[in-house]
């Protein structure tokens, strides 16, 4: 099944959208287009999902607690609300962590104020305060994050003032901070990422000025250690002699966040979820940022080279090339092995705010074609590139998410590089075809011409896509997985990796090649037609004769 765009996407678009009432179809039409990598067309993104549509999207709380703060092991994440929100975010995102044998690790715990009807009527602040006292008494954590769920905002509980009061009240030194991440804010998880970024920036980043040493110091942003991705990347950074001051937030700790402003570079993986922190740290502390993609062996090699160029050290440059050569040799062995079985096959990716872009690299390395892709909660800049940022209309749903006013911190601001160096660096990135500093070119510029780009794909659209294009593998999340597989197409979850991974970095690429090879070549899909289905016509013919 290697069909590529068998029909014109304009007629596909009609076919896809004629299932909707006229008004819905008109709205959806702006989120579906045929890709032109040279001049990416404007796509509608980060807008409300039509009520009643079966959507992939979740809520602001999920983006804040689940995605950004979830992976940090030593902050107690206290969910203020009825029990469900805490329950569903309990260990469900596969954020691995290494706390050693005696480190603090609250990842395996769920904490909730379990609000009851009397709290909804009379307010939940008293219960929240008591919960914080109990947590402090039981666990003595360094920090407690309070996460507001839908009813909290409505009943007027002020989690921020509770946080301040409790910090003052407790004898132990505990950093307590609140997040107004009620589920109804924004239009998807994305608003929650922004709120989480703001909270970390206001309450944690910059608290510890200790210089812990290291020749090349950087932070890795937008990496969440799903399936051990961070562990694999840490391995290569260690080999390179690069110190990861902090990650945001895979395998991270409170202390590392607090110290992260001592780094000299921010490398951004998932632009959507964390670009706010990168920008704010640049303004306040003078840390330049660059976009990297450590998904895919070639993309990883490219990104490590970019980082080496930034640090501008002959030894590091040499070492980077040696390590890339060493790692790619291992990668090549497996790629050569799977390539004959994966080449020419097709894939679709509908996931996340960066993964649908990044994972295209891995498929390309396997000789597979991306027929269609789109994000679940991204914004236009993630599709079209940051050049469109000034033209993005701020609508009512985005306006209510706080934009922090960030100014230079005179005591801590330190230019890491001269203007002249950064200019030369950009020139060299231009030459090598890389993104410049502080830039992200988005998904569309790297997708082939004519491929379909669809934002916030609905269930019905997904079924039509599969019926028409029969991709060899579909990438999305758990809610899509089994519907697609019932249709006889394997689905790779790119949120949870189907409990496999890591997929980042060099060894991650090897794991991904093997997993996709297994999925597209698994016997089970060929067993669907039963023998009697296959032989039935012959039998009938026999009777007729």
């Amino acid at each position, binding site marked *: 099944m290697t069909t590529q765009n068998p029909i014109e996407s304009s007629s596909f678009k009609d076919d896809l959208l004629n299932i*909707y*009432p006229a008004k*819905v179809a008109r709205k959806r039409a702006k989120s579906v287009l045929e890709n032109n990598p040279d001049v990416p067309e404007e796509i509608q993104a980060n807008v*409300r999902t*039509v*009520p*009643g*549509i079966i*959507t*992939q999207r*979740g*809520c*602001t709380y*999920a983006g804040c607690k689940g995605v950004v703060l979830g992976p940090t092991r030593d902050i107690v994440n206290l969910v203020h*609300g*009825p*029990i*469900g*929100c*805490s*329950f*569903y975010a*309990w*260990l469900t995102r596969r954020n691995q962590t290494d706390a050693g044998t005696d480190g603090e*690790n609250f990842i395996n*715990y*769920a*904490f909730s*104020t*379990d609000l*009851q*009807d009397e709290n*909804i009527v009379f307010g939940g602040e008293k*219960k929240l*305060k008591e*919960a914080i006292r*109990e947590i402090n008494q*039981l666990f003595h954590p360094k920090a407690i994050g309070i996460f507001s769920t*839908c*009813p909290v*905002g*409505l*009943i007027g509980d002020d989690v921020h003032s509770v946080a301040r009061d409790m910090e003052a009240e407790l004898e132990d030194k505990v950093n307590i901070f609140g997040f107004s991440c*009620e*589920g*109804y804010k*924004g*239009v998807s998880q994305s608003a929650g990422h922004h709120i989480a970024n703001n909270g970390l920036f206001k309450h944690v980043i910059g608290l510890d000025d200790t210089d812990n040493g290291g020749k090349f110091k950087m932070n890795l942003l937008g990496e969440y250690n799903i399936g051990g991705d961070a562990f694999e990347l840490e391995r290569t950074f260690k080999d390179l002699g690069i110190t990861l001051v902090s990650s945001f937030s895979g395998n991270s700790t409170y202390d590392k966040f607090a110290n992260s402003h001592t780094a000299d570079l921010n490398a951004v993986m998932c632009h959507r979820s964390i670009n706010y922190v990168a920008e704010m740290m640049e303004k306040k502390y003078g840390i330049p940022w660059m976009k990297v993609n450590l998904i895919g062996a070639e993309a990883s090699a490219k990104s490590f080279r970019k980082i080496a160029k930034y640090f501008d050290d002959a030894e590091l440059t040499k070492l980077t090339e040696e390590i890339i050569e060493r790692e790619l040799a291992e990668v090549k062995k497996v790629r050569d092995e799977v390539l004959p079985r994966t080449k020419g096959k097709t894939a679709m990716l509908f996931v996340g705010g960066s993964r649908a872009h990044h994972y295209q690299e891995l498929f390309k390395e396997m000789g597979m074609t991306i027929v269609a892709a789109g994000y679940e909660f991204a914004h236009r800049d993630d599709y079209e590139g940051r050049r469109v940022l000034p033209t993005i209309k701020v609508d009512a*749903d985005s306006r209510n998410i706080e934009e922090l006013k960030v100014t230079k911190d005179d005591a801590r601001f330190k230019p890491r590089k001269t203007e002249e160096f950064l200019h030369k660096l950009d020139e060299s990135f231009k030459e090598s075809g890389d993104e410049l500093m502080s830039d992200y070119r988005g998904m569309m510029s790297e997708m082939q011409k004519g491929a379909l780009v669809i934002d916030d794909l609905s*269930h*019905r659209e997904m*079924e039509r896509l599969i019926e028409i294009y029969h991709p060899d593998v579909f990438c999305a999340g758990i*809610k899509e*997985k*089994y*519907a697609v*597989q*019932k249709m006889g197409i394997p689905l790779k979850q790119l949120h949870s990796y189907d409990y496999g991974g890591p997929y980042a970095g060099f060894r991650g690429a090897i794991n991904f090649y093997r997993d996709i090879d297994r999925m597209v070549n698994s016997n089970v899909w060929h067993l*669907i*037609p039963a023998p009697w289905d296959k032989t039935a016509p012959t039998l009938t013919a026999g009777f007729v004769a």
Partner: protein
Amino acid sequence: MLLRHTSTEVMERQAVTINPAKTCQPVGAMYAALGIHGCLPHSHGSQGCCSYHRTVLTRHFKEPVMAATSSFTEGSAVFGGQSNLVQAISTIFTVYNPDIVAVHTTCLSETIGDDVKQIISAAGDEGKIPEGKKVIYTNTPSYVGSHITGYSNMLNSIVGQLAVKGPRKDQVNVLCGWMEPSDMREIKSILKEFHVKGVVLPDVSDVLDTPLTGKHDIFPKGGTTLPEIASMGSSKHTLALGQWGAEAAAITLDSKCKVPFTTLQIPIGIEATDNFVAELSRVTGVPVPESLKAERGRLLDMIADMNQYLYNKKVALWGDPDTLIPLVKFLRDINLVPTHIVSGTPGPTFKETISSIVPLANVKNGAQADMFLLHQWIKNEKVDLLIGNTYGKYIARDEDTPLLRHGFPILDRVGHSYFPSVGYKGAMRIVEKILGLLMDRQDRDAPESKVELTM
């Protein structure tokens, strides 16, 4: 240690719940609604609720779980969700064309006070509900009760809004408490053995255990049909399986359609299955079929043969009242010792009922009856076996104690949706699994000189 911060010393808590042994109402409503044929559950609230509920159900069943959402924004939270729900109803019937939409609320729509009944009727007036199609609703504020309450509320609303009083029919209703598709299939198979006509509600068999065929139906072939549900008002009797999950709906059927009912436990284990079978025989006048008698005998035979491996083994359990009560009784019947039991689901009779079966056990339900407390109890008094949902695997590993997965959610194993734990057959499966765990442990732990070939 995975749960390295769990201390042995138990501190009385008033406010914080740690590692809950329950979740919230709407997921139960969504689950119950999936047991109606041709039904699209609809979550009236933020997108996250619907996403989380679909996710946990999908992970538990490894099956597609279809449901829609009102996709609230801040504007809807301020001005009310009426336009969201009306538009949702219109979109759903145009795009997915279900027979019925079952709306449940969330803490958000409950807190702002959306009148869902009125909104649905407005949608009807605006012509958004096609002829012959149904939209029902239930109120499921997440800050009251638990997922079981939500399940019960939806079940209650289904019969309350769809059952029709009519001339008595020679059929019985079986209202299922929260159980697996495999269990509902087994209940139907017991009815078949009796040769009685029954309506089983909800019925998620052939909805959440569908075959791989190369085709996906948003509305699979299973589920109780609308005509069947309507006819429940004409049945001669209702058996409600589970006081927490099913009794409210039985009371509604009685008061609305004068169908008398008996509340029974979910038929887990010998006694609860005996009671179900005996009551079914009594209300239908059909003697207990020989096949079931033989099944019961095989179960007892198996227990007698293997009693030495079960005797006096201590067990810790967590889960839902309707499941825990018959399960604890069954464990006692086969000489295991339920020692620590928690359920996050509130209810005044739980503790009393459990304590009447196991007077010496630690029992708590409702507020702060969570898995953190259970783990602390276990640290104070070790057990030989854990029975509960997947979250127990962290305790199991830390305490090096085998875990029998039972309840909701089971996120890391398959089988629960295919093989029942109700009826005599289900009891055999429970015993088989317990024996497997305890005897594997004996095989693993025995000194080399003590390894037994025959057991």
